[in-house]
């Protein structure tokens, strides 16, 4: 899995030094060129599909971009969409760096949403800040636990996390459906949804007269923290070594099991936190379909960022632009919104295509 483990520049000090500014910039350019080209290729493929099916691709994309960046309100909406993508994406960076194929962020998001809703409708009377904190921590913990099930099955029974996380997705979704039609259903109402969270526990908003809540700031801060964890901490080092070469990890005295559990739990906690923020910051109650597939989309977010958490901020925003834009395409040009799935799929293919080609050309020959 070496293709996803190309490390970031380790010599940060030299980049900051004026003398090697140019070297740093060229390194940055080298790191960002493939994802940029990948996205352009994917958009091109989308454009071709639009043209073939009788739409005016160029006009549609123009409308889309103009619409997304039209005013503060629309930018805020776009960032609101980016928040869960960034959060889940940075978590997946950790799992993927550890070579754990967590396809279950979707389920972990649901688990986090359920726990957050439970804590949100209970514990009335707590101070507002403490209650919000409780909601977020509960969401993160539930996501971590849900992911840890797959982690434990992997380290104890050698069960493929690919299969278990996919199965756990379905189970989490059915569980949510059960909760909103049963125990967590709003009492006295007929709809399959939980009670509404009280305004006191809503996440504070950061841009007046928009819905953009502090989650985006937390996501960006967490991206930095995860970056430091992965590349500047000994535990993150252990996670990466396990991901590249588990034999070397064992030789180095790293507990492979512990690192796997740590990585998948971090990954799950980010997805769970994203779910909690969706409840406390956006929908304010739990529904059956609380996620439109954030957990799957975030796989593309992490990959496009080459599993670098700081990069995931940007790729998360990019995908949010595509999402918001695809709604505009639909409103303005009646382009089926599912086009965005196609573009996402194409982005993933272009990114892995580039990474694999680059790895091949960089490989030393005997």
């Amino acid at each position, binding site marked *: 899995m*070496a293709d996803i*483990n*190309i*490390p970031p*520049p*380790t*010599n*940060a*000090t030299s980049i900051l030094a004026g003398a090697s500014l140019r070297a740093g910039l060229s390194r940055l350019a080298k790191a960002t060129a493939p994802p940029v080209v990948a996205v352009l290729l994917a958009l091109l493929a989308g454009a071709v599909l639009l043209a073939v099916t009788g739409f005016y691709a160029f006009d549609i994309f123009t409308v889309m971009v103009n619409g997304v960046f039209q005013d503060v309100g629309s930018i805020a909406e776009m960032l609101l969409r980016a928040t869960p993508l960034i959060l889940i994406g940075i978590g997946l960076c950790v799992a993927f760096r550890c070579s754990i194929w967590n396809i279950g962020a979707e389920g972990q998001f649901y688990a986090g949403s359920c726990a957050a809703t439970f804590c949100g409708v209970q514990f009335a009377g707590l101070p507002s800040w403490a209650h919000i904190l409780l909601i977020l921590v509960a969401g993160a913990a539930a996501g971590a636990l849900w992911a840890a099930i797959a982690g434990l099955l992997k380290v104890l029974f050698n069960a493929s996390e690919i299969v278990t996380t996919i199965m756990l997705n379905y189970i989490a979704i059915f569980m949510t459906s059960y909760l909103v039609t049963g125990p967590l259903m709003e009492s006295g109402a007929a709809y399959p949804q939980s009670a509404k969270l009280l305004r006191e526990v809503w996440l504070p908003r950061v841009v007046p007269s928009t819905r953009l809540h502090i989650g985006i700031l937390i996501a960006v801060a967490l991206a930095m923290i995860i970056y*430091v964890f992965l590349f*500047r*901490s*000994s*535990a993150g*080092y*252990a996670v*990466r*070594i396990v991901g*590249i*070469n588990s*034999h*070397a990890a*064992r*030789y*180095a*005295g*790293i*507990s492979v099991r512990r690192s796997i559990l740590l990585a998948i739990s971090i990954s799950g906690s980010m997805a769970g936190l994203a779910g909690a923020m969706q409840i406390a910051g956006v929908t304010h109650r739990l529904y059956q379909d609380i996620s439109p597939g954030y957990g799957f989309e975030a796989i593309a977010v992490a990959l496009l960022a080459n599993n670098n958490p700081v990069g995931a901020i940007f790729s998360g925003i990019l995908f949010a632009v595509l999402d918001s834009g695809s709604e505009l395409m639909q409103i303005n040009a009646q382009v089926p919104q599912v086009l965005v799935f196609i573009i996402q799929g194409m982005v993933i293919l272009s990114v892995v295509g580039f990474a694999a080609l680059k790895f091949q*050309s960089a490989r*030393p*020959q*005997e």
Partner: protein
Amino acid sequence: MHVQPFLRMDNIRKRFGSVIASAGATIEVEEGEIYALLGENGAGKSVLMNILCGILTPDEGEIVFRGAPLRLGSPEQAVRHRIGMVHQHFMLVPSLTVTENYMLGQGSPLRLLSRMRAVSSRISELSDRYGLDVRPDSVVRNLSVGEQQRVEILKVLYHGIDLLILDEPTAVLTPQETDRLLDLLRGLVKEGKTVIFISHKLDEVMRVSDRVSVMRDGRVVFTTKTSETDPRELARMMVGRDVLMDLPRTAAQPGRVVLAVTNLHCNNELGLPAVRDISLEVRQGEIVGIAGVSGNGQSELALAMTGLVPTTAGSIKLNGEELRGLSPSAINRRPFAHVPEDRHKMGIVLPLPLTENVILQRYNQAPFSVRGLLDLNAIADHARDLVRRFKVKARDVDVLIHTLSGGNQQKLVVARELARRPDFLLINQLTRGIDIGAMEFVMQEVLKEREAGKAIMLISTELEELFAICDRILVIYEGRIIGEVPPDRSRLDELGLLMAGKRIDTAPAATLM
């Protein structure tokens, strides 16, 4: 001599990216001879032979075989020209039977496997004829390395080959198995077949070949009749200068016991006993060698001592402290260093820079980790220090380690382990796959550590390496230490018998300790 040689490979060139593997090599082989191709690892022998058997296509150059130009696109076409090769790493599918392996890639893909029985009886027939003792319905996974090699050789014979190429065939064999192989080759030549024999072992080349060519840096630098040369000349040709076969060293002055292994048992991956009742001691200021054919429990012994595979019984004491049952990370914190057998698999992490490789066991220890965070400056300083002291050829310490040559990688591993200031150093294969310059360098560094009073254990399959630096050599066979031999080349035969599992009556294992 002849106007038209049996085989001529003329000015063969092949490059992989920026690496030149074959730089205009030319060889001529006569019909019915054993022709040896001698050279260091990476000299280009295997590439040349892979071209001859159709796996690789040359960038330039011409092959003339039996008077006609030969252009091969695949190994299958080579087989059609009656050229076949036994590879160093066997090309047998472990989950299939011998017969199925022989049928692999034969004939039309749509053909049914109903011919299995006919193939089986043909295998038995050939096996009897050459005395190879191959049973057609054995599953390859269950065969020993020696048996697998016989399966490989028989496969080539089964396909009716006239020109047989063997790549490093003796690397995995005991001296006795080697003898048997060399006898077989002589017999094949008598039947009119031609053999090309790749090796880097001088003595075998001297014993069996009719003519020999030496390759260096992708070129053939020397060709002669074997009877007209001697090992010293061949060795000089291989490295381009005289080999320091014997490194200068003083007599050992063993001090107190640093490491004591008593009655150790452990199992291999499959749960079968791999180390059986091993007891040994390593003292300050001595190098104890462990000789043996690969697969006799050496790997498991090393892994058991470092806590990487669980032991089932016995004790491992370092400076009197019990290590058995400790985790690898706990052992890493003791003055115990370990140069692992396969650096690519275990010793280094290829896609990471030198800096992240030099802290492998100490990633969570001061000064490299402070309160859980890595101190990048301390790490870089340490890496630079090791690079300088061990003359590692690297542009900078933040280059990825896979860009370094094997010798430089191994230097860095040895440097890293010695920098941990161990009392005991466990080395499994010190010089495998590295160039002669690096080989001498690391051997000298290990000797220096001995002078400094360290206790050192060297597990090796290279007898030359053991003779060159060890103070005494223990022989491991089927998981047991079955004898001890002094590092004296005149006792090579004795060593060979022990490696083949034949105990010497005068020195029973029980009295060795």
